[in-house]
């Protein structure tokens, strides 16, 4: 019952908070054109620039190869792991079971990459200097989520049928019985924490990147007059 309540609370905070932040970013004006140049001249060019940032972490690659490697491995693996988890929330076609192995491998890669990011954060004097407790806690939270997930996969297998029942009940807003498995309860509770802090943390880079003026503007100030919405007429 308590878990059920908390689960809905966390989901609500996540959805409302994320929507609010996106609304806030979209609503706030961009008075001047400030793309980091050379920048694309067309909207399609901007879409491509953002795509390369999201798909390949282009700028990070220029900046630091190790951080890029670990960061990219983590994010790519996370995507696969999330895809793999879709089966716990909905009925999937038969072939989906066949490709589960990629998600499982990704789970291992993800935890490994997180570990490397944590070590790097602590190891390199510069990143250690810039890190607050929250930066370490965020990595540890993700590590704990990944770690409990791997434990369920490889060591202490929970009753997946009751878990799936609960998850479907959760996301279809029909309510659910909390499965009795302790490892799962920990895994799930940590995910709820992650969801609840998401909109108020640096995790908002997920949405914020698309609103970064230095990356999402065309370099066309002479060709088209950009109007500052709050300038005196």
């Amino acid at each position, binding site marked *: 019952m308590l878990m059920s309540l908390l689960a809905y609370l966390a989901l609500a905070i996540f959805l409302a908070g994320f929507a609010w*932040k996106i609304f*806030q*970013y979209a609503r*706030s*004006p*961009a*008075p*001047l*054109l*400030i793309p*980091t*140049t*050379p*920048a*694309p*001249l067309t909207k399609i060019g901007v879409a491509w620039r953002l795509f390369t*940032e999201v798909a390949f*972490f282009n*700028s*990070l690659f*220029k*900046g*630091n190869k190790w*951080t890029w490697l670990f*960061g990219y491995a983590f994010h790519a693996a996370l995507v696969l792991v999330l895809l793999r988890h879709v089966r716990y929330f909905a009925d999937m076609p038969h072939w989906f079971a066949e490709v589960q192995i990629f998600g499982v491998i990704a789970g291992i890669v993800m935890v490994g990459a997180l570990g490397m990011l944590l070590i790097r*954060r602590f190891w*390199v*004097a*510069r*990143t250690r*200097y*810039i*890190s*607050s*407790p*929250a*930066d370490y806690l965020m990595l540890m939270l993700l590590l704990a989520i990944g770690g409990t997930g791997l434990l369920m996969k490889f060591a202490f297998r929970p009753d997946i049928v009751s878990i799936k029942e609960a998850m479907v009940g959760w996301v279809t807003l029909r309510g659910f019985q909390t499965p009795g498995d302790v490892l799962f309860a920990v895994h799930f509770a940590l995910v709820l924490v992650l969801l609840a*802090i998401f909109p*108020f*943390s*640096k995790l*908002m*880079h997920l949405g*914020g*990147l698309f*609103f*970064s*003026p*230095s*990356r999402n503007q065309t*370099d066309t*100030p*002479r*060709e088209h*007059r*950009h*109007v*500052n919405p*709050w*300038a005196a007429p």
Partner: protein
Amino acid sequence: MANHDVPEVKEDIETPELHEGATAHLAIFPAQEKHMVPLGFPGARVENWQQAGVDKLKDLLEKYRSLQVYLDICVKCGSCTDKCHYFLGTGDPNNMPVQRAELMRSVYRRYFTPSGKFFPQLVNARDFDEETLKKWVTYFHQCSQCRRCSVFCPYGIDTAEITMAAREIMDAIGVGHKYSQEIIGKVHTIGNNLGIPKPALNGTLRFMEDEILDATGQEVRLPVDVKGAEVLMVAPSADFFSAPHVESLMGYAKVFHAAGVSYSFSSIASEAANFGMFIGSYEQKRKIASRIAEQARELGVKRIVVGECGHAWRVAYSFWNTLVGPFDTLDPRYPVPQHICEFTNDLYKRGGLTFDKETNDDKVVTFHDSCNVARASRMGDTPGGQFTIPRDLIRATCNHYADMDADTIHEKTFCCGGGGGLLTDELMDLRIKGMLPRVTALKQVMKHDKVNFLALICAICKAQFSKVLPYYDIPMDTVGGVHQLVNNAIVLGKNKGVV
């Protein structure tokens, strides 16, 4: 040369060890009441400055998407930590871009985020108190707004935007930097940063006409306030008086002369620079830019051409149209504004100019991409034209050219160390150390390619290099403008009438 601690130039640019507080002692000269009040800022620190500062931050968060997004989404990946020239030169951790921004982020978290309100220790949230303000004053005047960090940030977080906001907040509570405020005052009262009144401006231009006449036998004109001229030429005022800037000014004049394009300077808009950007004030940026738009209308010109000045070109190219556009009275066939390099290169390509490259044969040239030109503007029709056009022009006027290391040019170029409103004597120590990465790359090509001339297109860079290069045992006349090369190479009296 005064005594300064000059860092050792290594073979390659190296990331230094952290050196806590290395530049904490560097203090700016505070702006006084007489500098602040005319610009609409409080004359002294206001009574309720903490609340007023937080209120101003709220105001800016609502006005600038950049600030809101950039304060939120940094994940502290560390990609920027070894990219700032001031960090590379000083090792001071507060000169790592992320840590500089953290000075503002920690305040933002404290007052504007739930985590900072309830768990300040956990997320490093700080009150906007005396100690924080002191760090703001110090380290937001150790950022030259060069945007190099933004290139390497996975989200494009631009520390320049944060520095501008910080300076705007400080101005709003009466804590200003004398250097920029005093100069903006001169622009409004006299017309230019150097404070050159019209008679002096006229005098120096007539003197230059005589110089050119003596040297070439040609009557090249440098006219002021001529109505009906084709082009309004807006140069940084340093071009009128400083070395090596004047050489470029004579270069511009000869280009107009050789091409037969009528032009004029303006005594009222006798300054391309716009320090409104350095202090982050939209209103000052607009006011300073409006002098030029008004003069273009007043003189009835068809085009505006901007001289060799980096941040001025950013404001002109990226912001003018928004600040004071549209430029309805100008000829729509030409971009507004045009950079002098675009103008000259275009004329040359169309056969309107003749260069004798051998006049520059004593030089092996390299080109320093000035930060605001490289990362905040464009020339020509294609992205990256700001890199190719000046280089094309150099190759058209010189036989010997070599680029510096690829990690230090184009969008990855290093600031000269004096941009962003820091070209002031009290920050000399910072200016020397901030030049270290650029000097390292320069010394490499001086050694391997026998480079002996550093060409560039920025008045601040020219002033900074000619003052600071000697500390690194490089002669001050190593630096000069691209149009200084044009000035040497252009053959007068050959081409006429190409427009």
